[in-house]
């Protein structure tokens, strides 16, 4: 028995050793984990970066070749009351509560749209497919979705199109031919530009920074970092990229990684990027506890110019409010999910009314004005939204 146990334990150790050597080595070139080419935007001009971003987006749109899908024998519901269902990645989280709020605002404004939000309680593609499938059987006029997986969701969306149901995505895309339009909250290159620009404004064009991300291969984060690298090399060649560390989407690990960075580089590090809505507040907490806030509040003196560490990152406002209030963090980059949900309903309404057809270059989205079409069948919400002390309290998600 003991002998057997010993040999089994040995096998197990060998297995573990084999898998402990997974490729986690730091990468020199960020490939975005998907081998797509990077596409850095123009550097900020004197007049302001936001104009450039919109112009760039529109500039790309010379010849939009629509690559979305088309519903089969869809009834003509132009101007009539329609029933929509919204299936987000999951329900019960602040982010998708905000998109739902935007949808209800749009529905109220339009007056002839009713939207119900229903989705899985965990961000699980399997459950999401079942929810959508049931609504197809039940019969709705349109489906709005935020996909948990772009490919896995495609068969059920195709089934919706085949049943004459209109399909519009937002937040997380599917393969293009499985839906009609996708409302893109922020292009990857736009987010990268906004992050790097905001960092450069605070630490100077020759500053040095580190990044705390989820994992090197998480699709969105990897793509953002790839775009950030390309954009920084193009526009801020003097900046120093110290290190990129993984912290899963784990609060404590993110905090520990940020603290390690602060201790390791000391005055040599000027800024930290947080790439997830977990990493950014954790980095802000680490900076606060290490007393290296660039602009200290009433309590405690400001850290000297040399020691100060600026945090810029992607995060939801609620998580960042404490740090913005103490002025430890000045800017948080994200998009406005209320506008995102709002735009999705408008795009659906315009599509059903026949006012937004394949080949169009822009769409009228109510209070958001005309939104440009990018990437053949995507509607771009606009440049990312920067939360600051002035506006962060207007949001609750």
């Amino acid at each position, binding site marked *: 028995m003991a002998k*057997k*146990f010993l040999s*089994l334990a040995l096998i197990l150790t060998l297995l573990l050793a084999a*898998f402990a050597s*997974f*490729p986690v080595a730091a990468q020199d070139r960020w490939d975005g*984990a*998907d081998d797509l080419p990077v596409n850095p935007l123009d550097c900020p001009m004197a007049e302001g970066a936001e104009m450039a971003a919109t112009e760039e987006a529109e500039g790309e749109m010379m010849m939009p070749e629509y690559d979305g899908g088309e519903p089969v024998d869809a009834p003509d519901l132009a101007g009539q009351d329609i029933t929509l269902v919204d299936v987000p990645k999951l*329900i*019960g989280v602040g982010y998708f509560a905000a998109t739902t709020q935007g949808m209800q605002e749009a529905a109220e404004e339009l007056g002839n749209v009713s939207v119900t939000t*229903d*989705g*899985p*309680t*965990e961000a*699980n*593609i*399997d*459950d999401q*497919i*079942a*929810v959508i*499938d*049931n*609504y197809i*059987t*039940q*019969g709705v006029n349109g489906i709005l979705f935020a996909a948990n*997986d772009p*490919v*896995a969701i*495609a*068969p059920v969306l195709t089934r919706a199109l085949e049943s004459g149901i209109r399909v519009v995505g937002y937040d997380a895309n599917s393969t293009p031919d499985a839906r009609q339009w996708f409302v893109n909250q922020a292009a990857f290159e736009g987010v990268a530009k906004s992050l790097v620009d905001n960092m450069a404004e605070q630490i100077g064009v020759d500053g040095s920074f580190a990044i705390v991300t989820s*994992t090197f*291969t*998480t699709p969105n984060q990897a793509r953002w970092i790839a775009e950030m690298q390309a954009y920084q090399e193009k526009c801020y060649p003097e900046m120093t990229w110290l290190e990129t560390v993984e912290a899963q989407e784990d609060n404590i690990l993110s905090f520990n990684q940020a603290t390690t960075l602060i201790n390791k580089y000391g005055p040599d590090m000027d800024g930290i990027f947080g790439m997830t809505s977990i990493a950014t507040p954790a980095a802000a907490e680490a900076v606060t506890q290490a007393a290296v806030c660039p602009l200290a509040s009433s309590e405690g003196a400001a850290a000297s110019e040399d020691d100060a560490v600026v945090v810029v990152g992607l995060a939801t406002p609620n998580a960042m409010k404490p740090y913005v209030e103490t002025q430890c963090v000045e800017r948080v980059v994200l998009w406005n999910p209320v506008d995102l949900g709002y735009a999705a309903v408008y795009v659906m309404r315009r599509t059903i009314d026949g006012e937004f057809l394949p080949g169009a270059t822009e769409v009228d989205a109510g209070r958001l004005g005309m939104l440009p079409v990018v990437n053949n069948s995507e509607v771009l919400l606009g440049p990312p939204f920067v939360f600051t002390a002035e506006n962060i309290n207007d949001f609750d998600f």
Partner: protein
Amino acid sequence: MTTLPETKVLDDAPSLRDRLGSALFRQEGVLILIGIIALVVLAFGSENFLTVDNLLNQTRFLAEIGLIALPMTYIIITGGIDLSVGAIVGVSAIMLGVSWQNWGLPLELAIVVCILTGVLAGFVNGLFIVRVGVPPLIMTLATLAFYRGLAEGISESRSVRGYPDWFEQLGQGNFLGLPTQLWVLIVFAIVFAIVLARTTFGRSLYAIGNNELGARFSGIPVGRNKIIIYSLSGLMAGIAAWIFVSRTTTTRSDYGSGWELDVIAAVVLGGTSIFGGTGTIIGTMLGIVLIQILKNGLALTGVTSDATIVVIGSVLILSILINNYAGSLFGALTRRLRQTQQNT
């Protein structure tokens, strides 16, 4: 020794009438009753519910869980449990994608790799449980994390896409008018039911569940049979992974997460005692069907998915309560009946 009693019946063989009566009061009867009530109520709730199209479409959603529930019934009958099935689905699916796309194997061979991965994963579970004596709960809880980690590590969290059309037939196509995967489920369910009810191997599982030491002394190869059923569990998880990848046309490392709970819920709803010793394949299949009817029917009548979970949880508790109450009531009735017969 080939015919071991299924339940602890002390008297002579029960008459046909007794059997019919006990069957009605057993879990299967309760489930059929709840199922019929659910069908009627839900049919009134939504006109789209009780249609051939909808019901056939639903079988696509239950096939994978159903396949894994078959060996899970065996395992729970022996008093064991397998929490790692969802993770095995994940690692098998990843092996399918990785061996096809990264290693360049033909897709046919990649399917074999997928299923073999499942078998191996199940075999390792069985080996440790039997040879090292790790309790099944602990062992499969550990491999739940271990296999999921493997899936994430091997795939580097990247998904594999772009499967050819023929591959997607299993998950999305039809065969003789029924969804392809329904045929797979039906065939396996029949085989598993016959093996459990009519073979020495099947009967030995009840013996192990009722009294493992006794079974061992009766000459039943307890260890071997346990390794077989855990390997079977891996095998079916591998096949389920294949079907799931075919249905969703992509491979992700988080595939199958949380399935172990759906599977165990269906098996227990089907009347298999979590303490071992009793249970049938028919019961498990009824459990699977009932849960899917409720999920689908409630959604169609406009109940949101969070409320649906609450209803399913309540039905699970209710049916087990009814079963226990009705079971003891029926037991008391027959005993009294027998006594009066003996007295006269």
